[in-house]
């Protein structure tokens, strides 16, 4: 069989991504039709930059969702004679039902670069937003009281935040994401016959993963304490789901056996949350300091509302604009951080298809065979660019208020 020409490669790639194109068309059509009724999200479609950013982000989100349909080969599958082959090379000895080409070529272990890029999007798009969300939970739960109450707690928390911020990120990663650190600690027998090691990442996970539960509990209690029925249902639900997820994610000991986190992954996740939280803390603290002088806060105080109600139901909703913008930017930054970890071969296993690790694998033969490193590099860049443009569009539109 002949090798594909550049035009044919583009054509086949386009065909592989059909589920994504359809999804994007549907979402864009629906969003533009209803844009007068969807507030800030709808106004995004008035700004060309915001639209381009949204399209790029949507492309990768849909790619991650439809990854199984888009991939032409399994991401770990090797094929004989396909080592470092150029894009468009026909697959040697392909069976009847197989896809006949390596669209973006083969890497130095004869795996399909195209499929690995698509599989990598799934890893990145799960970890980066989730880690950012956790960092926001930590930052908001600590930043609001620090800004609102001030005083000694604020001084201590700010000092701790500055401490983490003064730590060179790369050094922190090299100290926190090593195989040795996971073994450093006492083994404790916990429920279900599982063993938990008191290593630094595990302890950090146990602390950091508490914050989302804490946040939701305070959120419901402060608002609905006057309606005990509803409050009890909400809090019981939060506690039940929270405890289940917490035991699965932080202790890898889910009694139902559904949730669990690979120790490597937990290590990376915790480090990324840890690095991001202090910055979010500082932003939220600043916003709380600014907003608490407003009249509606004074009105709530006069009404006799509790401090947590004011923080979570008066200040936080009014700080949403800058927070949403920062959330988009921070997902991009987290993606870059994850790539950095992969680039240094820290954390995830070397055969993992995430973009950072693939760039690291591919860079060794970069001048001879550029495609194995170039493809994930461009993928990472386009996604972060999309997030940054989206954030810029959102900022522009939210300032118009």
């Amino acid at each position, binding site marked *: 069989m002949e090798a594909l020409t550049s035009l044919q490669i583009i054509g086949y790639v386009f065909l592989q991504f059909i589920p994504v194109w359809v999804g994007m068309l549907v979402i864009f059509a629906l969003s533009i039709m209803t844009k007068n009724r969807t507030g800030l999200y709808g106004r995004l479609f008035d700004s060309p930059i915001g639209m381009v950013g949204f399209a790029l982000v949507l492309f990768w989100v849909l790619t991650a969702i439809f990854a199984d349909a888009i991939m032409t080969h399994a991401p770990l599958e090797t094929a004989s004679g396909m080592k470092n082959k150029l894009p468009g090379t026909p697959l040697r000895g392909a069976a009847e039902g197989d896809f006949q080409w390596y669209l973006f070529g083969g890497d130095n272990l004869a795996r399909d670069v195209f499929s690995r890029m698509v599989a990598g999007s799934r890893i990145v798009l799960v970890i980066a937003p989730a880690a950012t969300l956790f960092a926001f939970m930590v930052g908001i739960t600590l930043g609001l009281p620090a800004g609102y109450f001030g005083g000694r707690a604020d001084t201590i928390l700010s000092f701790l935040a500055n401490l983490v911020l003064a730590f060179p990120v*790369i050094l922190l990663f090299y100290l926190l994401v090593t195989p040795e650190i996971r073994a450093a600690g006492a083994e404790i027998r916990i429920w279900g016959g599982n063993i938990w090691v008191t290593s630094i990442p595990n302890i950090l996970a146990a602390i950091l993963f508490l914050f989302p539960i804490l946040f939701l509990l305070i959120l419901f209690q402060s608002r609905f304490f006057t309606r005990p029925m509803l409050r009890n249902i909400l809090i019981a639900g939060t506690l039940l789901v929270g405890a289940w997820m917490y035991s699965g994610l932080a202790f890898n000991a889910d009694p139902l056996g559904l949730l669990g986190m690979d120790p490597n992954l937990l290590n990376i996740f915790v480090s990324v949350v840890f690095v991001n939280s202090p910055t979010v803390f500082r932003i939220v603290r600043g916003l709380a300091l600014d907003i608490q002088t407003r009249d509606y806060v004074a009105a709530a105080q006069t009404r006799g509302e509790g401090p947590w109600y004011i923080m979570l139901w008066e200040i936080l909703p009014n700080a949403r604009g800058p927070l949403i913008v920062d959330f988009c930017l921070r997902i991009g930054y987290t993606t870059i951080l994850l790539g950095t970890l992969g680039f240094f071969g820290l954390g995830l296993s070397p055969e993992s298809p995430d973009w950072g690790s693939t760039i690291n694998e591919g860079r060794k033969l970069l001048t001879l065979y*550029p495609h194995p490193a170039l493809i994930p590099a461009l993928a990472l860049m386009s996604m972060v660019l999309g997030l940054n*443009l989206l954030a810029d569009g959102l900022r522009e539109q939210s300032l118009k208020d």
Partner: protein
Amino acid sequence: MGRFILRRTGVMLLTALCLTFIVFFMTNLHPNLEKLAKTEGNMRMTDEQVESWLVNRGYTQNVFVKYGQWLGVMPSPRFEVGEEVYTRCSRPGVSLEETGRFCGVLQGNFGFSTVFKGEVSEIIAKRLSLTGWLMLFVLIVMVPMALVIGILAGMREGSRTDRSLSTFAIATTATPEYVSGVIFVVLFASSRTGLSPILHEWGWIEKKTMFKGLASTAANDITLANFTLPVMALALYGVGYIARMTRASMAEVMTAQYIRTARLKGVSFRNIVLKHALRNALIAPFTVIMLQIPWLLTGVVIVETLFNYKGFGWTLVQAAGNNDIELLLGVSVVAVLVVLVTQLISDIGYVFLNPRIRVS
């Protein structure tokens, strides 16, 4: 002002102490020490032998005591291993009498590197000077480029120039060093792809490639060919951020009353920008540029690894990857100090530059 500087310096020292202790604690975790014992002693040591190796050399003392000894505020004890007597200061060919009681960082003794077989302080000094050159060229490229972009964009907010330059700035912040490095190498330093083969065919360049994909030769001799790509990769990621800050600052100044007055008086736009707006617009970017230096540190590590330039960042990777505890500690001290000192300078500089801020 004096009290402000004094207080800031105090907080800085406290932070430095906390951070170095954290690094010390994490590098001296037991699994790391076991690994050290096995690489320094014998790979096939039993657990008991490892333990006695560590006990003999004082590694099993309380971590605070060890930190005090490393810092040089506590006397370094002597250890006997067979015939030999050790302290932290012991080096081959130096008698024990010549060394003092205190052997810590404060006495200038950063320890001995197990990987490079040399004094940590000497290794770091050498590597740091190499990275200094890299940083110098990066700043020379990055700062003027960022300021020009920011000023041109912020001069007329919302214009077409502003929009295209702002988009460029956003694009650079989406391109981390390991991405731009890869793209640059493929475009300019490969004899098979990118621009080099085309230019070579046309006879515009004599060599096979425009630039070199490795900067290892730059340690002895910096040339355009071996240093351009690492400098560009580092500079590009930082440009966007500084440019956006400059743009915001410039745009704010351009709406100020005194600019309006100057305009109404009939001062030319060129003079307004150069003589009136620029000075005030450059206060904010100064802080950002200073704070950018610690941020460049991560970039330096990436770029030096990617281009194999054996500077400070490369040393960090080697120390961390080979469990060279003393060297990693030394590198961390320098890294932490760089971050804290630039923060201090940016705080003080901001107050100096901006007459509107009065420190109580």
